[in-house]
């Protein structure tokens, strides 16, 4: 399975049409101009599709940067039985 960061990068690519390599573990909305309020909703949908997860409002509020996104995605993936990971 690809590592989580590269799948997160792909979710960014699909949400914002940007080069996935520009997304690093240190990226935040300050670095990615399309990551605004509307963009955040698109990004969450893109991450949901990529990982087959659903996020609640509190998850969205905590996704302040890529590091936090990785933390939230990883903790959710751990709770999901591996058979359901697409």
């Amino acid at each position, binding site marked *: 399975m690809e590592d989580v960061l590269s799948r997160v990068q792909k979710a960014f690519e699909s949400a914002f049409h940007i080069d996935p390599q520009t997304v690093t573990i240190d990226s935040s*909305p300050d670095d990615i101009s399309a990551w605004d309020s509307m963009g*955040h*909703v*698109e990004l969450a949908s893109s991450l949901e599709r990529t990982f087959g997860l*659903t996020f609640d*409002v509190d998850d969205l*509020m905590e*996704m*302040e940067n890529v590091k936090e996104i990785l933390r939230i995605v990883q903790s959710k993936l751990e709770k999901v039985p591996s058979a359901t990971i697409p």
Partner: protein
Amino acid sequence: MQRSPEFNFAGRLLQRLGEKSALIDAATGRVFSGQDLPDLVVGFAAGFLSIGLQARDRVLISCGLRPPSTLAYLGAVYAGIVPVLVDERALAMSGEALFTKAGAKAVWIGEGVRCDWARNQNVPVLAGGFDPCPVHSLQPAPCTDGDLAVLMPTSGSTGSPRLVMVSHGNLRANTEAIIRSQHLGTDERAMLIMPVSYCFGASVVHTHLYQGGGVVFDSRFMFSDKVLHSINTYGCTTFAGVPAVYNILLRRSNIRSIPLPGLRRFLQAGGALAPESIREIQRVVPTAEFFVMYGQTEATARISCLPPDRLGDKAGSAGLPLENLVVRIVDDEGRELPEGEIGENQVRGPSVCSGYFDDPEATARKFADGWLKTGDFACRDHDGYLWIKGRGDEFIKMRGIRVSFAEVEAKVAATPGVDECAAAAVPHPEAGEALVLYVVTGDGESGVVERIRHAFPPQWTCASIRVVAELPKTVNGKISRPQLRTLA
């Protein structure tokens, strides 16, 4: 009319600042107090003049969700230099076209903002701030009511940007009329998540400062709860947003569990918000009034306002024209139509702008004999309330009958399980045109498509219904019709 400093809108704003005035950056907690604001604005005015800019020269101002953009904008107006406002998020993509269109001489950007095209072409780029300058050391540039104050970008239906010429008199007339329509007091503070390059955002800044109040900018609406907490932290009394913002608050925030006791009013403009969503916001925050407004950049900002006490019996209406405006509904030949009949909405009054900068053809199409041809189709009821039916280019003709996308979208959005809907037209062999619907559904909803089809009026033809994760939106949060077409 004699040119005089008293007609300078920025000069007038500074005179009216009070103890409650402030510009605040919620993301950093930085406060620019009312006491300091005049010297800071005049610092920008003196700074622009010191680099050789003169009255009537244009300067591109990059507008982010932080106070310095407003200081730079007002500083230019104070000096008689014409700011060309551009959304910071659009600076890289359309900044150069606006710069060229305006014949601007320099670009101002906030700290940490990049502007590669300007640097590559040796355009003077001013970054960050200027030292404050005592307000008494520099008078506001003398002007008349009709003198150009600011150029506001607006995207025409063709997609090419245009610059609306907004005069000092336009700004004052619209600001004063909006203040009265919203009963703004002298102790108000607005939470603003839109930049001043969008006329709605600018109008919130103007009205609140003009009344001696303040504005809090918050760039973190992607984490919408932070903005809700900031409203409480900074004692905001006004919140302003486009329909998408209210949909995010209802669907993607904890507004139901974060009380907003100090908030007095919600302002909503920039398209139609479903009446059910307005009712839901009112249920959640019953202590705040909800103002629906309608406007256009070509009319400075706002044209009409629905009084909150008429939300019940006039839900879906754009309200009454502001007190200093005259509105008429005309047919294709320009004949005024009686109440109830749908035609083009035209507006006249002191906040209607004089035209587009360096674009006589577009100006002639949109402005004639003092009337602004809004391009919006509307009717008025027997009480004089305006009902916007859609834009001229936002109709579908099915079986010979014109139906606005807005009407279709409202009908579909009222279906249980549907959060948002956007409609587009495709050619159809029998109906002429048929609808394609893009719908965003609630979590775990099934059978939504069936329910939509079931509730569909028989005279409407639907080619397909597609469930999508999100609708394409413009930077200002409106449904992007051109992008929607690429989905079709």
